[in-house]
Every structure is written in C-alpha cells, then in structure tokens.
C-alpha cells in the first residue's frame, strides 16, 4: 500500500510539472507585449521598463520559466500587472469562496444522487427508476449557467425568496451568506447530481448482478443484508471515485457560475485576469486550480486503494 501511495504521489508531481510548462507556454504564446497591454491607457515608458525589469520579462524564456517555477515552489506566484498585489495572496483570498461553493454543490450532488441512484438500481424498471433516469438525462444536458439564470428568475425575481447574486462573508452574516450560497450551489449541484445518479445506479446494478451477490442470496440472507453488506460495499468503491472527480472538477469548472452570481472565487479571478490581460494572475490561478485538481485525484486514488482490500493488502 505504501508503495502504491509513493508511486501515485510521484506521478502527481510529474503531472504538475507538466501543467506548469503548458500554462507557462500558453501565456507566453500571447502575441504582443503583455506589460504594455496591461498598462493600457496608463502606459508610460519608465513604468513599462521598470515593470519589465521587475517581472524579469527581458530574460530568455527558459530562465523565466525556471525562475517562476522556483518561486512557485516556495509559494510566490509573482505579482499582478494590474494591481501589483501578490498573486498568491489574491488566490488565497478567493479560495474559501470557491471551496464553499464546491462543497455545497457536492453536498447537493451526493445528497440527491446517491440515494436516488441506489433506489433506482434496486427497483430497476419501476416508475421511480424511469422517472429518475429521464430526469437525469435532462440534468446532464442542462448548461449549469442557464439553470442558474432560471433559478434566479424563479426564486429571486418572481418569488423574491433569495438574492440574485453576490456574496456575504459567513463571519459577518451567516444567514445572508447561506441565502447567497443556495442558488449557485443548486446550479452546479443538480447537474452534478445527475451525473452522480447515473454512475451510482450503474455501479449498484453491476454489483447486484455479480456472482457474490447470488452467493449471498443463496445463503439465505435478507434483502437488506445482501444490499448493505455485499452490494453497497462493493459499489461504494467506484462511487467514491466519481464523487472525488466531481469535486476536483468543480473547483475550477464553476467559473461560469461564479461569474453569473458574482461569486468571488478563483474561477472568476482567472476570467477577470483574461480580460485584464493580467498574465501573472492567470498563470498562477490556472496552476493553482490544476494543483488542487491533482491533489484531489491523488487523494481519491489513495482512498480507492485503501477501500479495496485487494489493493490495501497487497
């Protein structure tokens, strides 16, 4: 098991390295002079020269990369062209907002998707199964930001129950924070719930059809016992994987929802950086998002290995 963990960790580091190269290369593919564009109307040759020198943009690219990577390893992702703020600080400032949104959405996804998926599989072919499966087909096909728009329409503008956008810190106003969280979490969460539902249903169905389930029934165990002691413990393993993947995906993938609801998360930061041509911020943000995704994947892999005795006791 330890060997397994070490290997996966090594793979993660390699992947992260690769991502850093790609991110760096992408940003530096941009034609034109980033500093000049970032300065825009505030262009001044002296400021320009100073910024270029401070950002090290006059050095050869490989050296720039090495320098950036080196700093990144100690947590320094450079400074924003626009504001001069350290990128790491900007990212960390907005991290909680994205994390809470992703967490809430995951809660919705799991809370809806898993129970429905299990019941649908156990009662395969029933009306409930058909309805849930059909609903999930719609859920998977819905653009999450359009769903968000519709929810705003219904719950904010028509019913007036919830605020249409914005963010309030939970430390200042807990209920306000919660009411601002609900709609964005639902937008992302229900789509994710559809994906989780489909996966859970197929994982449970597969476990139900396995030989070991037949053996369990042949021993005279009750249906409940067969389900909880034999079917679900096996189905649980791939289900954990998909939940982890969903979380990892959400951490960066909620960009559009963050923008729609003016939720001050990292995704929104990245997007704004694109508009501002603020490449250090963009670089740092994408790297951070990839890093979190990889860490979660690593964690999921390890969890998978731990849950499956075939891997744990190797």
């Amino acid at each position: 098991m330890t060997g397994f963990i070490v290997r996966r960790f090594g793979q993660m580091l390699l992947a992260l390295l690769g991502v850093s190269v790609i991110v760096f290369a992408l940003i530096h593919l941009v034609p034109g002079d980033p500093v000049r564009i970032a300065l825009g109307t505030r262009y001044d040759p002296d400021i320009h020269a100073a910024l270029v020198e401070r950002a090290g943009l006059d050095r050869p690219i490989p050296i720039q990369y090495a320098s950036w990577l080196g700093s990144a390893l100690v947590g320094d992702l450079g400074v924003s062209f626009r504001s001069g703020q350290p990128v790491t600080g900007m990212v960390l400032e907005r991290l909680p907002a994205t994390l809470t949104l992703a967490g809430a959405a995951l809660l919705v996804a799991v809370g809806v998707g898993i129970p429905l998926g299990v019941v649908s599989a156990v009662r395969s072919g029933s009306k409930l199964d058909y309805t849930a499966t059909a609903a999930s087909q719609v859920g998977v096909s819905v653009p999450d930001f359009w769903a968000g728009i519709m929810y705003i329409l219904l719950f904010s503008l028509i019913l007036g129950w919830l605020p249409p956008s914005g963010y309030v810190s939970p430390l200042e106003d807990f209920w306000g924070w919660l009411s601002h969280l609900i709609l964005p979490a639902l937008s992302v969460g229900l789509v994710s719930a559809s994906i989780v539902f489909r996966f859970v249903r197929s994982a449970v169905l597969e476990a139900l059809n396995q030989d070991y389930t037949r053996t369990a029934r042949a021993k005279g165990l009750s249906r409940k016992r067969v389900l909880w002691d034999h079917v679900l413990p096996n189905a649980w393993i791939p289900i954990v994987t998909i939940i982890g993947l969903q979380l990892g995906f959400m951490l960066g993938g909620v960009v559009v929802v963050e923008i729609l609801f003016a939720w001050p998360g990292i995704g929104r930061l990245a997007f704004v950086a694109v508009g501002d041509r603020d490449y250090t911020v963009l670089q740092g943000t994408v790297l951070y998002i990839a890093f979190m995704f990889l860490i979660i994947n690593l964690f999921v892999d390890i969890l998978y290995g731990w849950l499956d005795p075939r891997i744990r006791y190797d």
Partner: protein
Amino acid sequence: MTDPAAVLDAGDPPVEHRSRLRTTVETVLRNRLAVAGLIMLTVLVVVALFAPLIAPYGINEPDVANRLSGPSLDHVFGTDNIGRDVFSRVVIASRVSLQVGAISVGIAVALGVPIGLISGYYGGRIDSVLMRLMDILLSIPAIVLAIAILAALGPNIFNAMVAIGIVYTPIFARITRGSVLSLRDAVFVRAARSIGATDTRIIATHILPNVIAPIIVQTSLSLAFAILAEAALSFLGLGVQPPDPAWGRMLSEGRGFFQQAPWMALFPGLAILFTVMSFNLVGDGLRDALDPQQRSLIESRGVAE
C-alpha cells in the same frame, strides 16, 4: 471428456460487418429514448440546414418600437432589447452551434485517435510520453483550459473550436488506446503479423475497424459537451463574436433584461438543452447497442487505469 457441442461454441468468429451494422441499428431503434434523441437530432439538423428559410426575420433587424415584447404570433419567442426577433436568432444560431460542435469534435478525433492508435499499438516509451501529455491536459478542468487557450490565441470562433478540440483530445486518445490495447494481441492480429503485414496495414485494416465503435459513441457524447462548452465560452464573450448570433451570448445578453424580458434568456437556453440532450440520448443509445461496458466522458475522465 469434451462436450461435443462446446467445441463448436469455442471462440467467437470475427463478426461480419454488415450484420453487425444491422443488429446495431435494430438495437438502437428498440430503445425508445434513443429514438426520441434521433428524432430531436433530425429536427435540429433540418432547422440548421434550412435556417435562413425558417427564420422569419434576420439576425440583426432591430424593431425598436416592439422591443422587449413577449411571445406573440409575430414573434414566437418574443423580441429582445433592441427589438430583434428572438426566434430567428435562435434558429440561425443553431448553425453556429452545430458547426462549432462538429469542427471541435472533428479536431479532437483527428488529434486523439491517431495518438491513441500509436500509443496503444507501439507501447513502451512512446505510450508513456503520449499518455503523460494527455494526463496533463486532463489535469485542468475543461472550461479553465479552454479559457487559457483562448487567452493565448485570442477569443474568436476559430480559436474556440481549436480550444474545445484540444480539451477533448485526451478522451479520444484514451478510448482509442484502450481499444487498441485489448486488440493488439488478438489472434487475428497475430495471424496478420505472421504473414508479414506491415504495422500500418495492420493498424488500418484490422485494428481501426474494431475501435470505431467506442469512437462513434464518444463522438456523440463529446458533441453534446462541445456544444455546452461553446455555449459557456460565448456566454463569457470568448467564443463567437458579434454580430454572429450564438446561444451562449444570447443568454448573456438576456441576463441584463431578466425582469422585463425573461424570454430572451429562456429560449436560447432551451435550445441548448434540446441540442445537448439529443446528442446525449443518441450517444447513450449507441453505447448500449455497441459497447455497454464503455463509460461516458465524465465517468472516464481521469479515472485511474
């Protein structure tokens, strides 16, 4: 001690292509959801093909007097903030969406399938390097990667197609590689090799036809996601640029006029939903018919192999 009839059952003979196509079609047609998807898809394609004829107005015919008016006989989906007919814009935007979807997925297939073929067939170093590269691409959530690529290349419709194509390349590479790996050591391939067939010939005539099935399924599913991605990008202003209409951008425009004209955002969104759903239903139907073991895009993204 052998069971006489078992001798006859041992080993599946290679499947004749014609009958396999027939059984696939039959299986798909029996699946009611898939048939619904096919019908939806047909409607979509017809609308896109004949868009200029179907749309009663142009994409840019402002009628300020009638701006922000609701659905009526004149304007089936209502009018937007400068009086343009929403229905016409939605219909004509279908062309853009389908085009972007088709071309992006085309790029993903054109890049991903060869990578998968080479990786799976030759194995070793090449395989490691290529799959590492694919893993790196998969480490960044799709939208973020697309945004980063568009930041580098500049936001317009062509670059959007390239960006989405690159984002979905790894999944095609993975799937192709998986199929190739399971076929590489199959008896009929070894037989071909033993009579001196070149690698290219083996890949082209023996392996490729058998990996087509999962690729077809994935194509349909990826088309669905590509259209969602395009909508998200145009919503953010990074995809299709004005004056070309795009569903995503119509959603973004509609946002500002929620209270007065919710139909501006409602109908383009429904169009996206309709389109994506039709590709998903057809893709699911194809998968159930061709290869029930295969997982969908989301499920196979990043799962440890």
